[in-house]
């Protein structure tokens, strides 16, 4: 296994506007912290894509590009894991009502795969109502055991 640098816990908290530039910004911040923690290129790609997909959902489906609503981003870098929390100020939704993108009848749907990819690429994935309104997703990626 390659040597991976260890670092003390560090947390970034920021709010972003509800637009596609914020998607790039969230991905960029997460990738920077993932690199610092020592994730390899493929792992960084997975983290970046998971953060991108969840931030797109927050901007497009949660806040619906509303200029008066913000995206709440937290990135926590611990010794052996990276945690990213993405929250929106939308109206929330019934998580159980989401169509299964892997069902044969849904395979040719144009959308609905973002959360599937985020879940596949991260070690922990939790989608829940955000305190105070909206939706929040918590993503965790652990460094492989050396």
């Amino acid at each position: 296994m390659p040597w991976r640098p260890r670092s003390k816990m560090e947390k970034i908290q920021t709010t972003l506007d509800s637009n596609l530039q914020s998607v790039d910004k969230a991905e960029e911040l997460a990738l920077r912290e993932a690199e610092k923690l020592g994730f390899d290129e493929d792992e960084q790609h997975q983290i970046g894509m998971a953060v991108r997909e969840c931030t797109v959902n927050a901007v497009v489906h949660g806040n619906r590009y509303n200029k008066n609503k913000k995206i709440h981003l937290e990135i926590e870098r611990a010794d052996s894991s990276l945690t990213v929390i993405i929250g929106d100020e939308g109206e929330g939704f019934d998580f159980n009502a989401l169509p299964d993108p892997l069902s044969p009848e849904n395979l040719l749907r144009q959308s609905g795969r973002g959360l599937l990819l985020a879940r596949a690429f991260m070690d922990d994935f939790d989608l829940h109502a955000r305190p105070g309104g909206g939706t929040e997703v918590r993503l965790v990626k652990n460094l492989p055991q050396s």
Partner: protein
Amino acid sequence: MSVKLTSRQVGDVTVIDASGRITLGEGASAFRDAIRDLAAKGHKKLLLNLADVSYIDSSGIGEMVSGFTTVTNNGGQLKLLGLSKRVKDLLQITKLYTVFEVYDDEAEAIRSFR
């Protein structure tokens, strides 16, 4: 860098060479417009070359599926060429490898249309 798309004819097959990023916004829109435009002009054998595509998100995948549906509904075929390991992984996770015909070799892909 957003996506760049060019097309060329190899016999009766239209090869679309894509490069850059196919993500929500400009990249995915350009991708959708290019495929719909070719389908509207009567191109029925489309080979999408993704060898130089560095990144595709779920919106980009959605546009690929939409393009597949558009072309198929017009009586045509849309096949994929030159997928990176990361894009192949996306097709595995989303089970779209059961939908698309995927080739690594262009000549073989061209022959498959005949």
